[in-house]
């Protein structure tokens, strides 16, 4: 016999109920055990160091006598007044490299996503494979490519490109090496894959039928791109620009290998202060300012582009 009635509302579970479910409730702790080691690692070796660094930045003293916390905030002011050109350069070079990465990377990402056909995987491999050659070796190769009197520089010279860039102040004379252009070129090259891969991921998700639908609704190919494709690839654009700008702003390898003393970026200063001059408070203050500036810009940028779900 099959019966159905609405039972009265249950009373609070009595003693018989709780022990029966005991073994299954123990599972509630599982996520914490899973998280514990990794989060602890990040807390001790990522978050805690930032605290130490903050404290170092307000210390005074010398290497011989040791450093003490004296709440000497003037270090920040001195660091900024002494090194504002390097800060400015970091932002400008990284910004230029990011824009170039977007301009260069978008067509390639688009090509892989929509036009590559059976070559798709091959091109993807070719984008990723350079990673496996140490980036320092590849950056040194630019020294050869951009060498004075080399074919690239000669070609740029005869096309009068270098006249334009000299006028813009990013090259000097008929040299490319040891100029801002070389540094920007190196930064662009180094972080280009970090732009292409997120762009590709977001483009690849776009349903090809949307293009047909847009065309069916009287959109020219260029309009389709502006009104459909590009807006839908925004998550890729945002994460790509972030993944390019952030490491580029803190980089000192390109400025060191391809630039000159006139192209030093804030990363170079931090590196020198920390590892050569051993002025820890100044280095810590610089590093802190860089971090704060980047976090501020990133937050602002993410808000502005409305892709907060990215995080």
């Amino acid at each position, binding site marked *: 016999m099959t019966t159905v009635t609405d039972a009265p509302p249950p009373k609070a579970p009595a003693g018989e109920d709780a022990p029966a479910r005991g073994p299954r409730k123990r599972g509630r702790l*599982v*996520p*914490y055990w*899973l*998280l514990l*080691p*990794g*989060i602890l*690692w*990040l807390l001790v*070796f*990522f978050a805690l*160091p*930032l605290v*130490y*660094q903050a404290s170092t930045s307000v210390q005074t003293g010398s290497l011989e006598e040791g450093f003490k916390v004296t709440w000497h905030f003037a270090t920040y002011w001195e660091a900024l007044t002494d090194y504002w050109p390097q800060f400015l350069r970091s932002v400008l070079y990284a910004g230029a490299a990011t824009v170039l990465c977007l301009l*260069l990377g978008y*067509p*390639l990402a*688009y*090509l892989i996503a929509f*036009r590559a056909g059976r070559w798709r995987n091959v*091109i993807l*491999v*070719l*984008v990723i*494979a*350079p*990673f*496996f050659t*140490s*980036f320092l*070796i*590849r*950056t*040194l*190769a*630019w*020294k*050869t490519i951009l*060498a004075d009197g080399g074919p690239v520089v000669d070609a740029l010279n005869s096309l009068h490109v270098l006249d334009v860039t000299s006028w813009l102040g990013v090259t000097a004379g008929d040299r490319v090496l040891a100029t801002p252009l070389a540094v920007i070129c190196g930064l662009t*090259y180094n972080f*280009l*894959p970090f732009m292409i891969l997120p762009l590709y991921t977001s483009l690849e998700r776009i349903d090809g039928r949307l293009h047909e639908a847009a065309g069916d609704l009287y959109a020219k190919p260029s309009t389709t791109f502006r009104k459909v494709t590009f807006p839908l690839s925004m998550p890729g654009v945002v994460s790509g620009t972030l*993944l390019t700008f*952030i490491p580029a702003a*803190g*980089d*000192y*390898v390109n400025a060191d290998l391809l630039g000159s003393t006139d192209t030093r970026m804030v990363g170079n200063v*931090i*590196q020198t202060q920390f*590892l050569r001059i051993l002025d*820890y408070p100044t280095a*810590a203050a610089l*590093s802190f300012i*860089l*971090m704060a500036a*980047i976090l501020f810009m990133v937050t602002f940028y993410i808000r502005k582009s409305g892709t907060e779900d990215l*995080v």
Partner: protein
Amino acid sequence: MAAFFRWLRRNLVVIAGLFTLGYLLLPNVVVTVFSFNKPKGRFNYSWQEFSLDAWKDPCGVADMCGSLSLSLQIAAWATIGATVLGTMIAFALVRYRFRARGAINSLIFLPMAMPEVVMAASLLTLFLNMGAQLGFWTVLIAHIMFCLSFVVTAVKARVMSMDPRLEQAAQDLYAGPVQTFLRVTLPIAAPGIAAGALLAFALSFDDFIITNFNAGSTVTFPMFVWGSAQRGTPVQINVIGTAMFLVAVLLVLAGMLVGRRRNKQAK
């Protein structure tokens, strides 16, 4: 002529894309070509004459192969550490509800949004304050730290796209929690975990900035290259660079071929 312009307009994006690809690959071509160079003087920046010397004697430079093997060791351990810890976090994030979720997400996102030089400098401050001996262990700790977030992201993406009903089906078919994890969850999440591990290996092996700050007198391969950029670049560096590029491409191509054949067999 009009037809040519029409063709050009239709294929503009292809041409631009291939130009970018060329830009990306040009340095690798240069690295490869110059691995057959016989430079005059200490630096290998301009072409002199063809030679196989460096290929015949890749370890002919003092300390280079030692630094290479150190880098491989560190990368291997860092990959294992970051993959295990990162996979655990990723599963916890996707599969469970718990407190402080937002804070934990930020803690995982921040290392990726932080310039390397900041992490490098602050970590060095910690080690100096603790009086830690800089070397293999400090580098390994640092590498696991910054690889962790990338592994979490890669594994999370895979686990999120996994139908939770698959695990429920396993449970329904008499697989306990451990069996469910080993027989169903892990095999299905494997591509994500492998991607995370590969990324961790590449990041660790190629890392310079954080290593430079925290290695003390220990020399990894990127640090050896950096040093040689100041003292003189041996051709052997290009040999190693070329060999790694080729090995990577061949491994990936082989993997693709095997995958394709397996698909064909199954059909």
